[in-house]
């Protein structure tokens, strides 16, 4: 990569260009360090020898095979864990799209008593560390008879306060004339909310949906506390997979790849939405 590398600032001074090359090399090293463990995960997952463990004289698993993946579904209930994860994440995402939209719309457009107090409850909840809830939520879910059911992983997480904040901000930025025009046309409240405003909110709802799906797909703490065998999700199954003495790395990493591939695909398609979802709290706040 001598003089001709495209993209390096061509007209800058020589020292500036030298600095750019150095920075680029530094970034490249960090990139390798960040990505290599994942490449390694796939290599081990595809190992031909399922009994392989790392050691000084056997540092690369030999052979290639998809057997470790298929055995996850035949010898173990990983198909069910996968479905549980996908189902819970999808339903929670759907619920958040609709419910956060309704609540966020109300905070943006409606007048009602104690509005400030109500909105404060949304912001205050964002400050509560999740772990404080593990004991009381476990007790509550048991009292409701929801332990180890889908309800335990769906209902408490159906309205994410961050979603309300995002929707409120977005709806507030829409011109109110749209709604006035709709009223003159004789549209009712429901038609305005669902027929006019909701379609306009598509960008912010997409950001919210991807964020919620991703969070719930990766979630460990609450699924771990609130479920057992029946609705075990992939991350919980992975954490339980590991025996203390010997570890079956090829199968474990095949399962870990199974949990990773969907979010990587999601990221490849929706990088922009994921990034704006993650920085939404920071830029405005």
């Amino acid at each position, binding site marked *: 990569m001598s003089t001709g590398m495209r993209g390096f600032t061509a007209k800058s001074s020589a020292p500036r260009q030298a600095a750019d090359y150095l920075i680029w090399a530094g970034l490249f090293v960090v990139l390798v360090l960040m990505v290599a463990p994942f490449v390694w995960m796939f290599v081990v997952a595809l190992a031909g020898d399922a009994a392989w463990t790392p050691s000084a004289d056997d540092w690369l698993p030999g052979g290639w095979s998809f057997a470790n993946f298929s055995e996850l579904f035949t010898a173990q209930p990983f198909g069910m864990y996968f479905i549980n994860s996908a189902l819970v994440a999808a339903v929670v995402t759907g619920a958040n799209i609709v419910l956060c939209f309704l609540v966020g719309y109300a905070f943006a457009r409606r007048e009602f008593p104690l509005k400030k107090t109500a909105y404060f409850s949304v912001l205050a909840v964002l400050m509560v560390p999740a*772990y*404080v809830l593990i004991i009381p939520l476990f007790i509550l879910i048991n009292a409701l008879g929801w332990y180890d059911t889908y309800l335990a992983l769906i209902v408490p997480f159906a309205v994410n306060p961050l979603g309300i904040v995002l929707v409120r901000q977005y709806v507030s930025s829409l011109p109110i004339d749209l709604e006035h025009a709709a009223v003159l046309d004789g549209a009712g*409240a429901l038609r305005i909310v669902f027929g006019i405003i909701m379609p306009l909110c598509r960008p912010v709802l997409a950001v919210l949906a991807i964020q919620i799906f991703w969070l719930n797909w990766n979630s460990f703490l609450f699924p771990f506390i609130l479920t057992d065998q029946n609705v075990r999700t992939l991350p919980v199954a992975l954490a339980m997979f*590991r025996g203390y003495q010997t570890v079956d790395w090829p199968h474990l990493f095949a399962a870990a790849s199974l949990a990773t591939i969907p979010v990587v695909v999601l990221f490849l398609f929706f990088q922009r939405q994921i990034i704006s979802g993650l920085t939404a709290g920071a830029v405005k706040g």
Partner: protein
Amino acid sequence: MRVPHGKQWAGTFGLLLPWLITFAMFWLYPLAHSAFLSFHDYNPLSGAMDFVGGLHFLRLFSDADFLQALKNTFVFVVGTVPVTTILALALALGVNRKLPLRGLFRAGFFVPTLTATVVVALLFVHLYTQGGYLHTLARMLGLAEADRGLLLDERAALLSVMAMDIWVSAGYYMLLFLAGLQQIPRDLYDQADLCGASAWQKLRLVTLPLLKPMTLYVVLINTIKSFQIFTEIFVMTQGGPVGATSTVVYFVYREGFEKFRMGYASAAAYVLFFVILAVSIIQARLFGFFQRAER
């Protein structure tokens, strides 16, 4: 101008209902219940509930396990947050330059954050285990014992988890810094160029001061998040060896769900909650102070 349907209270109440139910049932009530439990002995198996007043809070501060967990948690926060912040800032400054493949860098740095914590933790169990790549590397540098992996080594275990946390979170905070960098008006740099400012002067006099709000945000949320470390500990070490990696949330989990002392565990949870609040307020004040002192 009046908002259409702005005063239809019944409809408004219907719109708000999902949040009112969620807030009351899954936030307010559990938080209150947990506060109530922290003044009681409560065993979920027998259902026995006895009022003990503030005893749990007193006992926590003479409980060697809790104190060690608290100490480990502080070591974790103090050790990781500054390193992560500086690394993330450096990566953001690098990626913000017009370099080839910057999109690839930005995406690649973000992959660890994208992945489930459990997956990352398992990857590092593999790398840290006896004969794993990082254990072998540490041995070559004379930093590890030959006969046990890094996570079974009392002196190395917590540091190993901290190193992993820095590796995972740098990419996320890099994104936040990038968002902050992109909000700095370009003409400030143009003016600095006109004044003949060097790259270092531009960094020190334009970039860093204008990044201060974002830096505060990054430090605050990373601190709050780091105080709550649990999943990594559960998957990688179960608090071991001999409590060397036990953290407060891990302590809460063990007391509540393994020893079934849910009142005591709730008290520990609230102590950490107040520690997090206090530290957040102090950090916000410190940043505010420095900002005022500079003007």
